[in-house]
C-alpha cells in the first residue's frame, strides 16, 4: 500500500468516527420518566414540590449551543441550589419547568450511554461526576 492510500484509509476511518459520534450525540430523546408509587399524602403535603411538570420534555432546557459550552456551569449551579438551598426548580426562558437534577439531563441523554463520554474523550477532559453518580454506561437510568 502506498502512502496516499494509507492516508485515504486513515481519513475514512477518522471520518466514520466523527459521523458515528455525531449520531451518538444527537441520538433521540426518551419519553417521560415513570411515575413513582408509594406517595405518602402527609409527606407530599409537607414537601416543596417543583412547580409544573419537570423532567418530561422533548426539548433541552436551553439551546444546544449554549448547553455545549455551559452545561458544567449549569450543573454546578443546580447542584448548589438543590443540595444546599432546596430550590429544585429551574424555569427556562420559555417558561418550562425542570427539576434541578442530573436525572433531568439523563432523562433524555441517558438513552445514549456514550453521550457524555464521546465529547469528554474528544476534548480530553476528565470530570469527576461519574466517581459517584452512576452513568448510563453502568446502570440504565
Amino acid at each position: 500500500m502506498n502512502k496516499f492510500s494509507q492516508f485515504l484509509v486513515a481519513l475514512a476511518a477518522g471520518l466514520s468516527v466523527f459521523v458515528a459520534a455525531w449520531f451518538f450525540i444527537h441520538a433521540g430523546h426518551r419519553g417521560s420518566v415513570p411515575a413513582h408509587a408509594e406517595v405518602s399524602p402527609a409527606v407530599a403535603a409537607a414537601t416543596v414540590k417543583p412547580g409544573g411538570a419537570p423532567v418530561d420534555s422533548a426539548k433541552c432546557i436551553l439551546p444546544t449551543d449554549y448547553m455545549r459550552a455551559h452545561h458544567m456551569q449549569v450543573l454546578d449551579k443546580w447542584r448548589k441550589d438543590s443540595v444546599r438551598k432546596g430550590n429544585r426548580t429551574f424555569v427556562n426562558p420559555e417558561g418550562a419547568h425542570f427539576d434541578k437534577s442530573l436525572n433531568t439531563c439523563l432523562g433524555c441523554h441517558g438513552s445514549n450511554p456514550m453521550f457524555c463520554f464521546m465529547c469528554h474523550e474528544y476534548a480530553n477532559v476528565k470530570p469527576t461526576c461519574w466517581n459517584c453518580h452512576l452513568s448510563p454506561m453502568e446502570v440504565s437510568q
Partner: protein
Amino acid sequence: MSQNRREFLKKAGLGALAGLGAAAGLFPAFALEPTDSSGFTDAPVPGKVRWGMLVDTRKCLGNCTECIVRCHHDHNVPDFGHTKSEVKWIWKSGYENAFPTASTQFQNPEVLERQVLTLCNHCTEPPCTKACPTEATFKRWDGIVSIDYHRCIGCRFCMAACPYGSRSFNWQDPRPHIKELSNTYPTRMRGVVEKCNFCSERLVKGELPACVVSCAENALTFGDLNDPNSEIRKMLAANETMQRKPELGTLPSVFYII
C-alpha cells in the same frame, strides 16, 4: 449643547416637584412598588418542617433486617466485609449500646435483650455540623443533617463529633464492594464520610423513607415534628418515648417507644 442657568433651574424645579408629587401619592410611583418575588423560586422556608422518626421497638423484634437491606441497597452502601471498615446507614444495636445512659436496674430482661434500630438522629443541635471545617455536612431547611459529598474532604472530624456513631468512612473505593448497583441514589468515592440522609431523595418525590415502607410490622413512623397534627406527633403524645443520650442536648429527631 449649551443650557443657560435659568433653563437648568426650571427643569430642576419641575423634577423636584414631580418627586414631591410621587412621595405625596399624586402620581403612581411605579418604581417604588415592592417586587413580588414569590414566583421566582420554590426554595423552602428554613425551619418550617422538621422531619422525624419514631421507632416502636415493641414491634421491631427478632432478626428481621428488611429495612437495613432495603436502605443499604437503595443507597448503594458498600459492604467491605469486615467490621473495622464497616459502612452503615441504619443498623441494630443492643439495648444497652443504644441507650448507654438509660437505667437498666431491674429492667425487664426481654427489653434488655432487644436489638434497637439505630441511625443518624438528625439532631436539632448537631455536633457533627459544627465540627466540619468545609461545611460539607450541614443542617438542611427541613431538619435533615445532610452531607454534600462534593465538598467532603474526608477529615473525619464529624465522625469524632457524632456521639452516636452514625457516620462511616470509605477507606477504599466503595464501587467494587456494592453487590448490586441501584439507580435510585449515587455511590460515594474513596475518602468521604457517609450516613443516613432520611431518604431526602425520596421525600422530594413525596415518598416515605425506604426503611419505613419496607417494614412489614409498621414499626417505623415518619413525619413532620413541627406539625402538631402529624401522625408522629400524635403517637409521641400518646406513648412514653425516649431519645438516645438526651443529656447531651443534641435534641435527636429519632424517638423510641420501648
